[in-house]
């Protein structure tokens, strides 16, 4: 039996409204996250992954919902929800670790006061919530001392962990982490990644959607990996498969852009990716990757490739794999 899906995104479209037209940041995305899974979403800057995360949590101008559905925990359609209901389920069913996490805590309040205010707004007993928060702090390796500090007194890594503690207070079934480790040093990065995995293992977090441009970090904890390019998901598969046998040219080139440990350049040269991400105001016709794709065929510029199921949860959108 299939495990329950905590997130089911179908044909989801979110555009940015600008004076020059619509920027098609998320253009028909299908994505699933099952309970207990860690799904990594990778892609370049500007491919729409952050827009995806932000629009799921909170859709605000200039973002505009253009179609599709986002079903949370099999029950809530986030695209049709009223703002009141949304506030209710925030933090309980779904939580966010934002890209600007280092900036996310208001500096004018001590951490303790912030959590107390949260308790009051959520209709919770302040003391109880504080106890839960203290436990979270322990789980993220912070002492209770920070409760009486202001956010400016904390280092980047500490702030990140406080945000994780706050966002996981109510044991969310789905946690979306948007570049949680990008602004940190390598050592702290690893700690944060390990922490997120631990939280999932301990059941504090039901499932995790992890968004980043850094493949190296995703490999360490993801069960499943999805690649996104120019507003569309191009490949999905288990972490091992994607890393060892990437099928989509874009994924392939991405993985091979990483220097391998122990391999000198004489043995294997880095290929890298030529060109630049496309302008999402006027995306390329057909498959959006075709201008940069070394395997492009004439068909690629004419039609968008359909989904091709390669078995065992591995699917790809590419004309190279079209089965008759």
């Amino acid at each position: 039996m299939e495990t329950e899906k905590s997130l089911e995104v179908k044909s989801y479209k979110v555009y940015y409204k600008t004076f020059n037209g619509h920027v098609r940041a998320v253009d028909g995305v299908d994505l699933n996250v099952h309970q207990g899974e860690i799904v990594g979403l990778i892609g370049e800057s500007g491919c729409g992954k952050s827009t995806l995360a932000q629009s799921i949590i909170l859709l605000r101008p200039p973002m505009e919902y253009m179609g599709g559905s986002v079903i949370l925990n099999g029950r809530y359609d986030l695209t049709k929800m009223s703002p009141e209901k949304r506030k209710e389920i925030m933090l309980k069913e779904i939580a966010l670790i934002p890209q600007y996490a280092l900036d996310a805590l208001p500096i004018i309040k001590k951490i303790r006061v912030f959590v107390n205010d949260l308790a009051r707004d959520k209709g919770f007993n302040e003391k109880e919530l504080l106890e839960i928060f203290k436990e979270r702090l322990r789980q993220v390796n912070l002492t209770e001392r920070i409760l009486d500090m202001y956010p400016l007194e904390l280092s980047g890594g500490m702030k990140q962990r406080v945000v994780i503690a706050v966002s996981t207070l109510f044991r969310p079934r789905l946690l979306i982490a948007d570049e949680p480790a990008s602004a940190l040093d390598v050592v702290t990065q690893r700690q944060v990644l390990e922490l997120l995995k631990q939280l999932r293992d301990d059941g504090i977090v039901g499932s995790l959607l992890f968004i980043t441009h850094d493949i190296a970090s995703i490999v360490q904890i993801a069960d499943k990996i999805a690649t996104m390019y120019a507003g569309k998901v191009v490949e999905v598969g288990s972490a091992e498969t994607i890393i060892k046998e990437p099928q989509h040219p874009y994924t392939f080139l991405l993985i091979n852009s990483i220097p391998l440990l122990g391999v000198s350049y004489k043995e294997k040269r880095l290929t890298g990716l030529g060109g630049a991400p496309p302008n999402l105001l006027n995306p390329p016709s057909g498959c959006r990757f075709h201008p940069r794709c070394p395997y492009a065929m004439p068909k690629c510029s004419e039609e968008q490739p359909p989904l091709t199921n390669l078995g065992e949860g591995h699917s790809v959108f590419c004309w190279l794999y079209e089965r008759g």
Partner: protein
Amino acid sequence: MLKPDKGADKIHDFFAKRLSKMFKFTESITWILLKRNVKFWICASIIAIVLSLTLIGPCLTPYRPLDVTTPRLPPLSSGSPFGTDNLGYDVFSATVYGLRVSLMVGLIAAVIATAIGTILGLIAGYKGGLADSIIDGATNILIALPAAFIMIMVGAFYLQMGEAPSALREIRNMAFLGSMIGILMWHWTAKAVRSHVAALKISDYVIVSKLSGNSDLKIILKEIIPNIASYIILVFVIQLANALVTIVTLEFLGIKASDWSLFARVMQWLQMGVLHAHLWWVFLIPGAIIVAFIASLYLIVLSLDEVFNPRLRRV
């Protein structure tokens, strides 16, 4: 046979370049946003109307400010579109002549404040170090000074008031008053310009320009000034509005550059009891005009700010 005129060619090129730059601008986002901004156009028209009043107003009225005609005429009477007061002074001519004086003093003050402020701000922001500390100190002292009282003392005792009206003396007074106000107002500009310039100084293209061996003066002229030019214009408009408010208040207290100063006359009228005589147009019309003008100046700056600053836009 006619030979092509090199001079005409040069002039043609000059305008062609400018016009094509203007057209490029009209396609830009700024222009599109500006066109839609209703506030901007209303205020710009108000300003244009008031300015034309000051420029051609005097030609439209047969009376001079101190001429006496029929008393207690309400507005829209023939010959006295703004009415007259209880002694027969024509309000329209008092307004248009008076506005000239007040606006001129305000303009002088704003120009001086903006000029001094910009230059000092540029030096402080660009050179940094000792120059910055000195200018910063001067700015802080100026901010804390009770400028109003200084203006009152200078205005009360240092302006020359003679019995007979003299154009030369009035012009001297206007310049003096305007300069004094300007000298007490520049600190605001200097602070703002300084922070802008300091931020620009460490931007990449300035560093590149420096590495290319350009002298400091050239960098300031070519890189920094074009980038703060629009900001300076906004600052100037705000300074003008502030200066006008100051001048009107000073005139009201009795410190005037000329006997024709608009709000000095309004004060006189008040003391002559126009309020109790129910001659409301005597203070309301000049008042409304100056309020509309000052408000438009502020609003224009606000609408331009909305256009340039994305966070303030309510799209």
